[in-house]
């Protein structure tokens, strides 16, 4: 396996006043990896991702994305990452082609470049039959593919996906994950955040975040074996909630 590092942090920290949202996080994510980010609401996932995307300055520690320092080179980083949110941020009243051209323009691609990338992506993510349809009329699974395509238009080496398959049917979901496996095969790196632990099972490695710290990291089978649980959901609950659940009654 290729061990080139795509995302690296050392003791990365972010405070908001007295509150420590991200508390000394050290991770290395490798090229070609699908890396899952798990954590309860408010665990610090979003703050960490915003720092990695160059949208928020760290209070302490170090980090680099695609080889660029997150404190100094946020503009270079923004050009090298793609972001796909749960809500897809597509324009409902534009056709598939129009959405692609719109996003291409936002990324500052030349017309010729957009056309070329459009051609590549359309066959890669399987949008051929839908090019002239209104985005609002597309099935959810196809919207999701379009959103992924738009996030990859500028050919970024690193992709951040926020609960990418929420609500889609199992067939479309498996198809989407096959697409992600093909994507990392070309040397890209994918970060996925999710609340749904069955989605975590698809990742090469996952990390579990609690109160600003990474409290566990490893492949889904390693985590299940070392905690003697049959699902990632059970591992998560044992790690994050065990103590609190005991106090409940």
């Amino acid at each position, binding site marked *: 396996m290729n061990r080139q590092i795509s995302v690296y942090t050392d003791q990365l920290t972010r405070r908001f006043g007295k509150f420590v949202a991200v508390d000394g996080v050290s991770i290395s994510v490798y090229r070609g990896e699908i890396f899952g980010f798990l*954590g309860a609401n408010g665990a610090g996932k979003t703050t960490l991702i915003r720092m990695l995307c160059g949208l928020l300055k760290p209070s302490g520690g170090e980090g680099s994305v695609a080889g660029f320092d997150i404190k100094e080179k946020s503009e270079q980083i923004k050009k090298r990452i793609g972001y796909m949110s749960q809500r897809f941020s597509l324009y409902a009243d534009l056709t598939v082609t129009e959405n692609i051209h719109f996003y291409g323009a936002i990324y500052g691609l030349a017309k010729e470049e957009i056309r070329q990338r459009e051609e590549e992506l359309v066959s890669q993510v399987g949008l051929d039959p839908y090019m002239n349809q209104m985005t609002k009329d597309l099935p959810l699974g196809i919207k999701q593919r379009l959103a992924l395509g738009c996030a990859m238009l500028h050919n970024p080496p690193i992709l951040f996906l926020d609960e990418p398959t929420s*609500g889609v049917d*199992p067939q479309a979901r498996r198809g989407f994950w096959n697409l992600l496996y093909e994507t990392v095969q070309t040397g890209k790196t994918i970060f996925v955040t999710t609340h749904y632990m069955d989605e975590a099972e698809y990742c*090469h490695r996952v990390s579990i975040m609690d109160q600003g710290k990474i409290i566990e990291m490893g*492949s*889904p*089978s390693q985590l299940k074996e070392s905690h003697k649980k049959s*699902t990632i959901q059970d591992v998560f*609950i044992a790690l*994050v909630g065990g103590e609190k659940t005991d106090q409940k009654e």
Partner: protein
Amino acid sequence: MNAIKITNFHKNYNSVEAVKGIDLAVNSGELFGIIGPDGAGKTTLTRAVCTLLVPDDGTIFVDGKDVVQNVARIRAILGYMPQRFSLYPDLSVEQNLRFFADLFQVPAQEREERLAKLFRFSRLEPFKKRKAEALSGGMKQKLALSCALIHTPKILVLDEPTLGVDPLSRQEFWQILHKIRDEGSTILVTTSYMDEAEQCDRVALFFKGEIVGLDTPENLKNHYPFPIYKIYGGDLRGLKSFFDTLNTVHTSQLFGDALHVSFAEEPSLTDWKAWQAKSGGNLQRWVHHSPSIEDVFLELLREQT
């Protein structure tokens, strides 16, 4: 008596057939799950049960009464949490809860106990003075749910209540639903997450306006016809290509650090040894794997087409 009895329910939106003639009976005291992806017709069904939508064809009886003719009587015994629940953004977490307690006329002595319970489950207590508009998405969802649970209706209908809620709160949420069921309420709940089927007494698997499977989660999984294995090796994509060429392979799917393969028939040790040799040592380890509800769902869809 059935708490909810649905016969040949049809609903169209213009030319789209959202629900195509469904028959479904929910027993009294049951925690019943409607499991399916977005667009399967889950919301249409729950809205019809809650008297908010008139069927184009068929009948729906709730607590023995027709939903079209007994709107007021049904609403009095029904609790409903729609997907977009209206919280009052200017009120605090606690004020929202107290407002709904007033609305549902929860007696004073029950109220405090209930509030304490809901705060425990939702972990919202530290935020009880915060305005609803300042909550994160997951927290809003938990507050909405808490507001729907402030009274104990005879029949509770929840439309995708766990969307965006973290795993810990989801687990606690299901524990609360189990308690409410044990206290005698009937619960109809929808979700697009297949793994939540396990939490229900019985489930209906929904796809494109039809029921493709209906049983207890245990029975659904027991009827899955193919042995499934988790397969580990050096190059998983290479292994997938290798297994895809075998006649005995029914389906194969990459899952992070393993490959899941379902076989038409149980492979023998001789088969495994032969495959190991053929894969040039790439096939390292195989473990029997129980089917998930998602495997069952996919198989039911495959059988349909």
